């Protein structure tokens, strides 16, 4: 067996070379020995790493497609909107390591699965709530450094602006993955991306990066913005 090469590319995000020429990324596992979604575990220098599957996680796909700067680092507080079954949040909690990650999810059915992975990671706080109504969880969530949003709602840009007003520190980052098909099936994705970008800029963001995450997801784009307040 060839030796596994692990190289840090962002803070707490590692590039992994298994010797087959494929570009892979991984995070150091906070709960060693546990898998969240059936991902591959590898060991290097007595540390356990979880391979980050870009087909299942849009943030992972964005990193592989060349994200310039990764706002989520060790020690950033994160508000994660649209946690779903906890695939990406588990990696986010690996990255932020010893600071809090609030994960908001709306559907109780998915929450049932997600709540299990929260038990193993103490920095991951599950919140059953509607991202459209941020005041409903305003008594739980504190100010954060990064908001990550992946909710696939028609008004997802407005949701991000609303949440940023409540919870985002000034000059904090926001990452939003926009699915064109969930906003309007009849329109050209490019038009939709422009529209959503406009909403974000008017809402008080400076867009610093945009990454198309094809081929992992179709008609998706990820915006990274800095919150300038209103």
């Amino acid at each position, binding site marked *: 067996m060839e030796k596994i090469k692990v190289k840090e590319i962002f803070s707490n995000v590692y590039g992994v070379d298994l010797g087959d020429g494929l570009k892979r990324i991984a995070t150091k596992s906070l709960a060693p020995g546990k898998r969240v979604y059936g991902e591959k575990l590898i060991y290097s220098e007595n540390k356990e790493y979880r391979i980050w599957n870009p087909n299942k996680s849009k943030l992972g796909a964005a990193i592989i497609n060349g994200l310039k700067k990764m706002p989520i680092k060790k020690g950033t507080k994160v508000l994660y909107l649209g946690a779903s079954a906890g695939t990406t949040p588990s990696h986010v909690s690996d990255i932020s390591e*010893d*600071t*809090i990650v*609030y994960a908001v999810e709306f559907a*109780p059915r998915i*929450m*049932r699965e997600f*709540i299990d992975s*929260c*038990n193993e990671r*103490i*920095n*991951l*706080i*599950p*919140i*059953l*709530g509607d991202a459209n*109504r941020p*005041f*409903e969880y*305003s*008594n*739980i*969530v*504190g*100010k954060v450094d990064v908001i990550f949003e992946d909710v696939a709602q028609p008004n997802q840009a407005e949701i991000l602006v609303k949440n940023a*007003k*409540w*919870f985002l520190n000034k000059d904090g980052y926001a990452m939003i993955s926009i699915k064109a098909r969930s906003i309007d*099936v*009849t*329109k*050209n994705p490019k038009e939709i991306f422009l529209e959503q970008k406009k909403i974000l800029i008017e809402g008080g963001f400076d867009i610093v990066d945009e990454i198309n995450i094809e081929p992992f997801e179709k008609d998706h784009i990820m915006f990274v913005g800095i919150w300038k307040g209103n």
Partner: protein
Amino acid sequence: MLFIAFAPFGAFAFEETSKNGEYSIEDIKYYKIFDNVEIPKIMYDFRQANFEIIGEIKKEWEIEEVDVNVEYTSSKINPTGEFIRNNLFEIGKHYGIFEDNEDFLIKMNEWGTQFTKLMMKKSSEQKDKLIVQTVNALDNLDETLNLFSERLREWYSLYFPEMDSLIKKHDIYVKLVSEYGDKEEYTRTSLKKTMPSNIARTISLAAKESMGADVSEYDLEIMKNLANEINGMYEYREKLQEYLEASMKEIAPNLTKLAGASIGARLISLAGGMERLIKLPASTIQVIGAEKALFAHLRERAAPPKHGIIFQHPLIQGNPWWIHGKVARAISCKISIAIRADVFGNDISEMLFEDMNKKVEMIKEKFPEPTKKRRPRPDTRDFKGKGGPKRDDGRPRDGKPFNKPKSGEKDGKPRDGKPRGNKPFGEKPRGDRKKDDGRPRDGKPFNKPKSGEKDGNRPKPQNERTGEKRGGPPKPKMERKVIGKTSSQN
């Protein structure tokens, strides 16, 4: 002005002072720390809009002022809330809630988990979730029953092939096999008890002169066992249906009266629960279950669907086709009212039912004759999100490409008049079509060439339906048929 806001572990308040939004822990005028055990419950109460706690806190702090701003209820940010969120950990540490960062994480995690569990308990206590599951179970059961009944037919036909064509209904076929099995037991006298005598005679005659192979008793026993199992599933299906009807009457009496238990339950199931269903407009209820056609309409200007799941309603099925759409609209309006009455606790089913029937009668009187020629029904099998059906309604085409260039390139094009469907399998017809088309191209390759080829190659559905002359021998269809048959006989 007094501002009140909440942290997970307590309530805090301070007065508005002109400090340009700069506050410190000393500015907190009132505070109340919640009991550690009660925190998830308090969070839960807030979410359920049970704001008694706020009243209690006010009493405890002896506030009589009217000018109080509570953040949670007003959905507006106030300075206290802003301060708490900025210093969540520091405030907790100041009041001795947390020791260090790890303690903070552990406690927050525990409260969040407990609170979420409470919320989930509430959401799964709703009876409509049970209905959704029941409907899904029924659908799965139907699928399985069909599959196994077909298998039994094939299997048992080795022994008694004549019965396959004599008895069309699966449940009767299965019952007969599980009851008799042996060919010699199909006598006229015993069959007569359960079915009309002429059918009993045909079956018993066929059993006597059967061309089926002889099998051993052991082989027959295995077939009978399968029939028994399927029969048991049919019985269970009936029980499930009864349960569905009973619980639908309990939670949605109006809807059940108007639409019937089956359609009502399906509406709830497709919408994802009663709470969601009451928020839908009647026009959406009309097309629930026809999403594929609806999106084809939005995307590729296919004909809009007239009805979704409510098409199964007897008032629609029992009336002539030219008023289907009108009746569907009338019924969906009444159904929409009925669901809301169910959720908010009124039984007005009799009135609604009468209204609905009256309305349908009116429509019937108004349109005794078809007002337009019947159009061939669009073939929804062809959509798959790739292209709409090609309508042959005689309207002139504007020839414009659609919004989506990918599918538009193929579908918006004027016909070149060549007969379709005579292409052998797998050959690409795209090449020669391209030349005839005079429109400018953007030169882009197809995003999905695979599906595009398939679409172009397929014989046009409406040609089959309207009986237009098809050029050439229908080769592809023949091949397909043979393949299908052999695979099912294996």
